[in-house]
């Protein structure tokens, strides 16, 4: 095992999550892609902590921040989907595209 292998694993998860976030029409599936990307960041942060600066706690703190971001992303994401669905019967990104206008 080495830092490069862990970073490669994190990169793989980020790339798959990016594919999902960009290609999925359902907002819930898009959120799953974002969560996968955050999972990749967790692996990378843990590897940096272990292989670069294990005596400092910054890598661990970064993981705590990312875990919080995952929880916030899911909670706010579902609340937005619920509000959108209630007001417009919309649960797909293509049908909610008028925000860009």
């Amino acid at each position, binding site marked *: 095992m080495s830092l490069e292998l862990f970073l490669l694993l994190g990169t793989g998860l980020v790339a798959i999550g990016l594919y999902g976030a960009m290609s999925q029409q359902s907002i819930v599936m898009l959120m799953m892609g974002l969560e996968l990307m955050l999972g990749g960041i*967790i692996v990378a942060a843990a590897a940096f902590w272990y292989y670069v600066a*294990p005596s400092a706690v910054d890598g661990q703190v970064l993981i705590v921040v990312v875990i919080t971001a995952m929880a916030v992303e899911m909670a706010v994401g579902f609340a937005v989907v619920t509000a959108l669905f209630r007001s417009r019967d919309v649960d797909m990104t293509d049908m909610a595209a008028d925000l860009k206008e």
Partner: protein
Amino acid sequence: MVTTVLFWVFGVAAVVFGFLVFRLDSMAQVTFALLASFLCVAAEVLLLGLGYLGLVIVLMMVMEMVIMAVFMIMYMMNPAGLMPMAMYHNKAGAMSISVGTFVVLGAGIFLVDWPERAGGPPAEPTVALGTALMGPQMLTMMTLGLVLFATIVATVMLSTQRGRYDRFGDDLRARRPEDPVPGGVGPQRTEMRGPR
């Protein structure tokens, strides 16, 4: 040796389950594929000696994915996966950008001259994390607390059926809220119109 085998097993499994998230048809299967991917990520974190954070990821993701399964079944048109389903847009473009990102980041990983390891891990990484969060990293912890509180307020505001404009009118000038039952709860005003 055992650690290396476990790294490869969990690493490959994390990527495969992550890819299955966007290939399976059943929403329940999709959610549990994502959960399996996260459990493999947690196993990798445990392999690096971060016992507490690995366990937190396991516990949090189990709860989060169970909740997500409920939402998936609520909002998706094909919850049981009884028919093939494809809800993509710009699939080829997304795939090429994703592969390009992987190649660029992967090249960077092997081209960058990473710094040498400075020091060793503490005997108790969890104690070190807790001490830092309650000491030098207190501002981080306070910010996270505020973010979580704001999230609670925002999610309740977004998901509630009756907002302030439903209760006090469009210009918010009503002296008394128009509530079907006192306290602002109950069904929407439009549903309550009728003989009262």
